[in-house]
């Protein structure tokens, strides 16, 4: 019985098995299309102009981002930390670290060798930049391959931009790696083939012809969307190509450099921004002087490279990251003494630094009483009627005679004195007669102002003297004759300050334009004495004078401030000399890049600045014009050159005080001016190579060649080596000479 039942079941059972097997055995099921809507095939991608535009966006992202996930997580480049792999970051490292403009404290593999110019072909950063450049070239080729035969005008416009971006990257390959690089265009495919090696001349010609071909297909200057390349960008790249042509090919092209620099200056419609600082702020997209920006955004364009890297890496030591609009410093980059020297007389600067330090360390432990009252909150002394926060008066001779300075911000201030930071023992003045009464009534000061307090607890008396402070002396503009140079009270810092022009000589501090209360510094230690000796000023120039009274001892400092607004050093706690590259506090720090808007607001995110990187900008074009003229190019004139250089300097100095005469306009001056104007913008290495100073003994800087005082190095280092892994994977390539 069982068996019969079974027989009736057998056929369907086996049949079912075979049927299911047949159904699913269809090997078509092995042809799977990615089910993820974020993953598309080529056919889906290169369809409408809108699709092309998204791929075009990736070509620009090749400069600003490191992958498909911000700030990191799905990288473009393998085998290197994703943050490091950023184009701008790599470019910055390649162009800045081996020069006098920057050193780095970090010891990530391969990085210290950039400080000392000792890289080899297996260096991680040599590979990183190279990989990024050729990733970008592969992307642009793919775009051009798919776009070039499309009839749509819009796609052709995109195509011109893609060709510009490819030319830009090939220029970097030419400039950094010497042009002996694999040459791949849209004519080549994707996959297993070995590209041929090109040479500097051919590559130069290719970049030039590409740029000339697309010049008129690109929108007129400033007519494309922000962040995208226009004709101005192409002109700028051509100018740079021609200016350095002699380095690349041995042939001078200065006349062509002038031609295209002139186009930028005359036809571009760009303006020098009012303030130099504006170019490096969170809202620098408002700048009129940026020709080709690489935009970053705290919310939408996040990376650990780009201006995130440039801004954070500059912050360390005693710097307050919040002052630069970010949450933290990475304690990496500083400048060498040789670079600082472009701005100031270093010996004098160092001395004024020492002076201010002496004063800063002058705190003493004197017996104290406290002034507490209704003024505290408004005048920055904590909460009202809180002795814990109250300003102190000190008895310098420990004789129960106290003095000190306290600021009252408004009228009818009420206050009392306390013995400790509590109300347990306190004095008021019951009948406002100038004698103190234990637990007496509040004392009232009618006028706001900066008061000298004298309190005698032996006799229970007190006096208040209102003071306004200034400086006088032959070192000051007004000499020893009144009126004094008035200082301003800075309620936040609780100090009096003035920025004024000092000459060498002497000066003193006076209250109320009168010798009744005056301070000097007899022993030059930064601590002030009443009626003390004159203060010697040894360095002339724009100076920030700070007077700190408050609780004795009273101190002051003078700090030479530059008149060149491009000099943005942070020096507190930093030494000028760099004995140990790994210490952030050695070498001056730089505050040029700030994640703050012109009005001082922080960018959208404290970690990822909104600052756009100005790849090309107008002042560079001015200086290139001038240089090309000085180098003998035709079609320009020295008069215009001088005028352009002085425009740059007028912006820097705020007036014509920094202007130069025709005789001062030399190639050496241009190089220094380029350093002052364009430092930390990834130009320096190219400039030094063009001037023949990158490797030479004629110009050395700290740690050039691996020694602190700097030394000349082998000329082979003028270009980077082809990475060894690339030599291994492509037998068509011959290494750059010497590596």
């Amino acid at each position, binding site marked *: 019985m*069982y*068996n019969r039942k*079974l027989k009736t079941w057998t056929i369907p059972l*086996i049949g*079912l*098995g075979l049927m299911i097997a047949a159904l*699913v*055995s269809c090997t078509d099921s092995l042809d799977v299309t*990615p*089910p*993820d809507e974020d*993953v598309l*095939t*080529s056919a889906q*991608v290169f369809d409408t102009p809108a*699709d092309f*535009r*998204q*791929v075009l*966006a*990736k070509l*620009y*992202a090749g400069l600003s981002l490191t*992958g*498909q*996930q*911000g*700030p990191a*997580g*799905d990288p473009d*480049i393998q085998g*290197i*930390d994703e943050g490091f792999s950023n184009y701008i970051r790599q470019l910055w490292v390649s162009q800045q670290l081996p020069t006098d403009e920057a050193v780095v404290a970090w*010891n990530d593999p391969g990085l210290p060798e950039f400080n000392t110019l000792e890289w080899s072909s*297996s260096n991680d950063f040599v590979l990183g930049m*190279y*990989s990024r450049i*050729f990733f970008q*070239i*592969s992307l642009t080729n793919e775009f051009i391959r798919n776009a070039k035969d499309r009839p749509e005008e819009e796609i052709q416009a995109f195509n011109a931009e893609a060709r510009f971006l490819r030319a830009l990257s090939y220029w970097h390959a030419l400039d950094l790696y010497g042009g002996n*690089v694999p040459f791949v265009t849209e004519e080549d495919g994707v*996959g297993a*083939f070995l*590209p041929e090696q090109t040479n500097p001349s051919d590559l130069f010609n290719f970049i030039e012809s590409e740029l000339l071909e697309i010049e008129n297909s690109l929108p007129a200057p400033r007519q494309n969307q*922000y962040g*995208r390349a226009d004709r101005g960008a192409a002109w700028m790249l051509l100018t740079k190509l021609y200016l350095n042509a002699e380095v690349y090919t041995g042939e001078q092209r200065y006349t062509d450099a002038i031609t295209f620099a002139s186009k930028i200056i005359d036809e571009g419609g760009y303006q020098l921004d009012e303030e130099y600082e504006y170019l490096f702020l969170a809202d620098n997209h408002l700048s009129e002087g940026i020709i080709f920006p690489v935009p970053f*955004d705290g*919310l939408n*364009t996040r990376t650990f490279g780009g201006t995130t890297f440039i801004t954070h890496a500059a912050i360390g*030591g005693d710097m307050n990251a919040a002052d630069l609009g970010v949450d933290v410093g990475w*304690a990496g980059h500083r400048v060498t003494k040789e670079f600082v020297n472009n701005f100031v007389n270093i010996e004098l600067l160092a001395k004024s630094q020492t002076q201010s330090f002496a004063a800063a360390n002058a705190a003493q432990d004197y017996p104290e009483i406290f002034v507490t009252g209704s003024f505290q909150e408004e005048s920055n002394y904590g909460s009202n009627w809180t002795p814990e926060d109250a300003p102190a008066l000190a008895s310098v001779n420990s004789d129960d005679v106290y003095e000190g300075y306290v600021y009252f911000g408004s009228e009818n201030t009420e206050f009392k004195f306390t013995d400790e930071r509590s109300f347990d023992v306190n004095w008021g003045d019951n009948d406002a007669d100038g004698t103190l009464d234990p637990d007496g009534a509040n004392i009232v000061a009618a006028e706001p102002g900066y008061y000298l307090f004298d309190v005698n607890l032996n006799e229970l008396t007190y006096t208040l003297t209102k003071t306004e402070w200034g400086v006088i002396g032959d070192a000051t503009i007004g000499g020893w004759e009144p009126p004094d140079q008035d200082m301003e009270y800075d309620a936040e810092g609780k100090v009096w300050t003035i920025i004024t022009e000092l000459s060498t000589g002497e000066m003193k501090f006076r209250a109320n334009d009168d010798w009744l209360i005056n301070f000097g510094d007899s022993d030059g230690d930064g601590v002030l004495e009443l009626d003390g000796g004159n203060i010697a000023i040894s360095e002339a120039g724009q100076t920030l004078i700070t007077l700190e009274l408050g609780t004795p001892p009273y101190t002051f400092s003078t700090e030479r401030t530059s008149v060149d607004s491009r000099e943005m050093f942070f020096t507190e706690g930093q030494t000028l000399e760099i004995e140990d590259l*790994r210490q952030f*506090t050695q070498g001056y720090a730089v505050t040029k890049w700030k994640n703050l808007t012109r009005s001082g607001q922080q960018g959208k995110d*404290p*970690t990822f600045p909104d600052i756009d990187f100005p790849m090309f900008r107008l002042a560079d074009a001015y200086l290139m014009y001038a240089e090309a003229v000085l180098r003998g190019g035709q079609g320009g004139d020295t008069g215009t050159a001088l005028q352009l250089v002085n425009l740059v300097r007028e912006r820097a100095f705020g007036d014509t005080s920094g202007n130069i005469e025709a005789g001062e306009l030399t190639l050496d001056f241009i190089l220094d001016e380029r350093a002052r104007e364009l430092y930390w913008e990834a130009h320096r290495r190219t400039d030094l190579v063009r001037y023949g100073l990158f490797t030479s003994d004629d110009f050395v800087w700290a740690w050039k060649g691996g020694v602190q005082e700097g030394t000349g190095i082998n000329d082979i280092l003028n270009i980077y080596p082809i990475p*060894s*892994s690339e030599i*291994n*994977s492509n*037998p068509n390539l011959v290494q750059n000479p010497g590596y």
Partner: protein
Amino acid sequence: MEKFKTILITLFLALCIPVAGMTQNTVSGTVIDAETLDPLPGVNIVVKGQPTVGTATNLDGEYSFDVPSLQDTLIFSFIGFLRQEVPIQGRTTIDIELEPDVQTLEGVVVIGYGVQQKEDNTGSVNVINTRDFNQGNVTSAQELFQGKVAGVNVTSGDGAPGSRPEVRIRGGSSLSASNAPLYVIDGVPLSDDGIAGSRDPLNSINPNDIESISVLKDASATAIYGSRASGGVIIITTKKGRKGQPTRINYNFKASLNTNHKQVDVLSADQLRTIISEEFDESALERLGDQNTDWQDQIFDNSISQDHNISVTGSMDQIGLPYRLSVGFTGSNGILERSSLDRLTTSVALNPTFFDERLKVDINLKGVREDNFFSAESAIGEAIRFDPTQPVRPGDPGDRFDGFFAWTDSQGNPITIAPANPVARIQQTSDNAVVFRGIGNVQLDLEVPRVEGLHANLNLGFDYSDVGTGDFRVPGSAAFADDGSNAVGVRRDFDQTRENEVLEFYMKYDKELPRANSRFDITAGYSWERNYETSETFETNFNIDDVLQVEQDIDFITERFLVSAFGRINYSFMDKYLLTGTIRRDGTSRFSSENRWGLFPSVALAWKIHEEGFLANSNVLSELKLRLGWGETGQQNIGVGNFPFLARFTVSEPNARVQFGDEFVNTLRPEGFNSDLKWEETTTYNAGLDYGFLNNRLTGTIEGFIKETSDLLNVIPVPAGTNFTNRILTNIGTLDVQGIEFGVTGRIISKRETFWSMSFNTTWTRDRISKLTNVQSPDFVGVEVGGISGGVGNTIQVHSVDFPRNSFFVLEQVYDADGNPLEGVYVDQNGDGIINDSDRIRFQSPQADVLVGVSSRFEYKNWDASFSGRASVGNYVYNNTDSQFFINELVSPLGFIFNSTTDILDTRFRNAQFFSDTFVENASFFRMDNINVGYTFENLLNTESTVRLSATVENAFIITNYSGLDPEVFGGIDNNLFPRPRTFILGLNFNL
């Protein structure tokens, strides 16, 4: 209950006892287990030559039936025991003791697509049964056979509850692709992808439900699994009910105390103060606090875990339905604060038969819910680095940072790149996951009528999992100052579902050819598998009322298929000469249509030497079998997604957009692809000798193997400009692995009340990379791997031609006369006067040269005791815990202070010396994995019921010269290991 059982048994007996003959020759008796002396119910008894005349023992092991003649011979057989033939010789009462078949409990081995008599097996297969499983607090299947099988290295997971032990069979065979074995559970191949939110995908299987584990090591055994078999195959069979089995209820309880028995040696507060005052200026001293905090003490604590399992096994024979049901609960708490695993498992196994047992049905369903709390494991490293002079929580809840100490700058803002307060890290981070997983299958095996020996088998299986995880960090906390989202906190949700389905259909034909003195069986089948996965990550502000600073939504979907045909033939001649041939053809969607099909053959021969005449009468030698095998397998788990061959584009996420004017545009990136990609192919040669002495009191195997993997997948640099990536996975290179395995098990004493067995196994392996790139250039150092802490992007290992995989790639340290390392002084290997990368040498590797496993079991009356231990010899470890500390970096330029391990006092290294070989240490060790003692109370409620009490120490001790916390480091880079606890376990087992 008892009554019910009696009815069942009666029914069972009624069904089984055939109609008796007319002659009344009744034989009766009792059958007991020769070792335990327990009565054996269900023993089959038949009259020799008359297979239809027979009976089975009842619950008390008693039998009674009529035989045709008192001169016949009875055959007693029972699964797991040696068959006995007993001539009646006129007796009417015959009591029998059956000897357990110790070599394999059941005499059969589970192999791919079927089972086989152990003696007919030609491949290298080890079976571990319940009886041999490791005792202790086992949460995952891999731990059950740790140290038990020669050639199989199970590296314990770290100390996290339910962490994943890594299994390497014969050293694996790959560089970039997976080296893990394929797991097949009751016929369902598990997806080789990890499950997010679960520390170990195999946690889905409750070890208490496992009946046996087959480890398939050589190609003869694994080639039937084709393109996934290069890492070996592990087949797990779960417990099932058996026909006629009485109802048994088993309750198993374990309580464990996990203790943190060892800490990383770090500087005490005073030692740190001393070194800071010696080496740094005043300003650094001022930053030191006045406390004396042992941060490791703060984050680690002893913990208690519990484990309950209850199972019911039996058979509803009236409807022909053997069953097993089980429910298990594991509440495992880690020694790191807030780390735990709660796991609820259920399993159902039903094995009905129909049509007079001609249709057998196997239904298995397993479900698990895992609640994982991961704690914040980065606190482990931070507890080592964090300044011990600082207080844990100087403020009150409600203060800034919730009162916890945090490094701040001069303005009081957190220094986001300083280490986070480890206690705050744990308290202010929440990271947990809930994992649901169901695995099940229905297998139908049909004995095709009218064709004797022909079976059709259909297996439909699924493996679904669903994961939800959440991770949040408190805003403004001290805990995660390092991720830049400090102000608003982060909330991150992750969901993942996986759907894997499998369909297999095969036919098997058994045939005996008595005239040719031969028998053979042929299996041929077809298999189809689909793996589908979706996941979504959503990240936002902790408090979404704040200005939205973080929002990221990442979706991911992927799918792949595997279609295969397979076949096997087993041929036996004269029961002495065996031949096995297998073949599998696999097609996968992971490769392009040109490369997706692969053929994986194997052939093996075996010679049962002991069956030969010259050995047949040997009293000493009871078994001797020579096995020779050859085969090819593949590895398609290449770790680069499911579409590495396809030209495709990926859309960027919202945080990675590009500004065009006022608009932010999502970008489309072409992905690098390699249309020529295919699987790795491993050719294995295997020679083995199985031996047994003294009636198999002493048994074992000695085996040698050679594996060559060609088309080795390796990530190599792409010639610049030719693809959309700078590195791509390519089939290039060759790897050779060789080894010798030896295993022996001895039943030293096997008496009525005393039993003692010992097992020992050892393995020697070595591996060499013999080819790595297209262009063989002497300058090519190899592929640098093994990222370490310290700096960004430093690696310490390298794959190089002529060296083992993952060789350490270091500079050779020079020491002074006292044996102290000289900082920055290394051997200038190439003599160019500069110490740089080209002076790095390949020095040792993490792979052990020799592995040893040893275990023993001792029983006396109701007492039992066992231990199991392992040794690893010649494995090296890079001590990254020590190597990341240098005197000059104890004080950061940003003003915070690091603590260090005490190693700094020995090396006195001032600056980073990451590549010094002084940090590469010989980490050979012997570890006593567990020691176990038990006592069984019998006859409590009735004769069947027992209670066993046991006590176990897990991770009892370790012998090593390694200076770090624990020498057992998978991958060879020791950094912030979650310490493995020493665990004391009390167990209670009720068997009703």
